[in-house]
């Protein structure tokens, strides 16, 4: 009940937009293969359910795998950078430069190297979230209040324990914002990969449907992607909140 109360303004907005869309299609009489009405999309969704879920499954695996690998390697990089001062001068510039490489341009090369299977897409999703996670986590690790480090030092903590017991928990709030960012970026990576070259996945299905003028099917696939993106964001957010019951979060998801 309270959930309904909290979300009804957003829900109302969405319903209004959908209504306007339906109205626009009816009034202008634009053909289905240019812009299908929302109801047509729902019909297409129902008609192609099996096909849609099959491809959605592939894309979901790519996204989740990319998210996990990107998160682990981003976190690992941040910890290594914070722990070993020497590494900073070597690794940090390389990281920054690598971020200037447009991932879209990289996609065809990844296909060439890794083939049309899932691996190339997982690598794309990994690459797209690796940097936000690494940089937000490293920033968080660097910004530990000096007072906590002083205390840890006088309590006899070595550098490794200071990193794991003081700096890492202190960096969790910034890591959480990095993860939320990553959760919304990971699907992009996977779909780009599928567009460039694949035989499965929602990106492939959309491209194919577009070529065949099945715009309603394309929209149905898009609907799944949106739903999944939103679900992923909220799940990540919930996990991060569970990890930090002590944290007063002022960047909540509902405001």
């Amino acid at each position, binding site marked *: 009940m309270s959930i309904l109360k909290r979300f009804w303004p957003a829900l109302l907005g969405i319903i209004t937009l959908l209504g306007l869309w339906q109205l626009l299609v009816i009034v202008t009489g634009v053909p289905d293969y240019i812009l299908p009405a929302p109801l047509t999309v729902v019909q297409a969704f129902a008609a192609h359910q099996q096909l849609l879920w099959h491809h959605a499954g592939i894309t979901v695996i790519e996204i989740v795998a990319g998210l996990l690998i990107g998160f682990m390697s981003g976190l690992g990089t941040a910890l290594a950078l914070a722990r070993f001062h020497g590494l900073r001068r070597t690794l940090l510039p390389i990281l920054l430069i690598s971020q200037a490489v447009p991932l879209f341009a990289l996609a065809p090369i990844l296909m060439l190297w890794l083939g049309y299977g899932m691996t190339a897409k997982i690598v794309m999703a990994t690459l797209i979230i690796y940097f936000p996670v690494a940089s937000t986590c490293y920033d968080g690790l660097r910004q530990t209040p000096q*007072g*906590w480090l*002083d*205390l*840890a*030092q*006088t*309590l*006899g*903590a070595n550098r490794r*324990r*200071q990193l794991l*017991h*003081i700096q890492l*928990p*202190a960096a*969790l709030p910034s890591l959480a914002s990095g993860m939320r960012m990553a959760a919304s970026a990971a699907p992009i990576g996977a779909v780009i990969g599928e567009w460039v070259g694949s035989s499965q996945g929602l990106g492939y299905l959309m491209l194919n449907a577009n070529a065949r003028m099945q715009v309603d099917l394309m929209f149905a696939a898009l609907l799944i992607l949106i739903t999944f993106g939103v679900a992923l964001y909220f799940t990540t957010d919930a996990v991060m909140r569970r990890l*930090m*019951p*002590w*944290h*007063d979060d002022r960047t909540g998801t509902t405001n």
Partner: protein
Amino acid sequence: MTSLGFSLSQARLAFSGQWLFDGLAADFTPGSWTGLLGRSGSGKSSLLRMIAALPIPDTHDLTLTTTDKRPLAGRLAWMAQQDQLLPWRKVIDNVLLGPALRGRPTAAQHQRAQDLLGDVGLGDKAEQWPKTLSGGERQRVALARTLFEDAPVVLMDEPFSAVDAITRLELHELAARLLAGRTVLLVTHDPLEALRLSDRILILSGQPASLSDFDVPGGQRPRALEAPDVQRMQSQLVNRLHAPHGNIGEGVV
């Protein structure tokens, strides 16, 4: 815990190319409480950090000897201006921070932390998050954490300055009782705090700064607020700190 004294000599600290102080020396006898006062920027907090071997950006040097000739490292406890409670650890886990950082706390240590929380009057708040506590309560948890270390030397950098005046007076009583027998060096801005709690008051002043003694009232610590000595000396101490080179009033007391 056997009490431990220490002395420092040849202490010097540079700030933007100038010696803030050079060749400072002081003795801290076992079990004594010393109040260290000085204006802002006199370098008193830096001196405390130097004794604790904490990082300082400026050039500094210090010779430290203890009464048993063994190093001080590992035998001192640090209490800062803020309570420095870690928000992600429950109150009792903050008290257990030392053992957690050095290894894994034992059941006996857990029990001891609980007892210490009882001593500071927070036995029923052990499982709460620090954010639910008031400023005074948080500082009491910090005191319990300091006590847990059972260190013979306690260095405090304005530990009670972040709480209101009444809470501060209560914390004085508590700290004086629970930290009895330890060698305490207390950096403070508050003349009253120094007069209530110190066996000896040192003032860091001048350019380059030097340490000078200021007589303390008689009687046991913590001295009563209303004691005539405490009141009279408070204004003298304020005047002394106010003076450009900290020399006015010297020998008058």
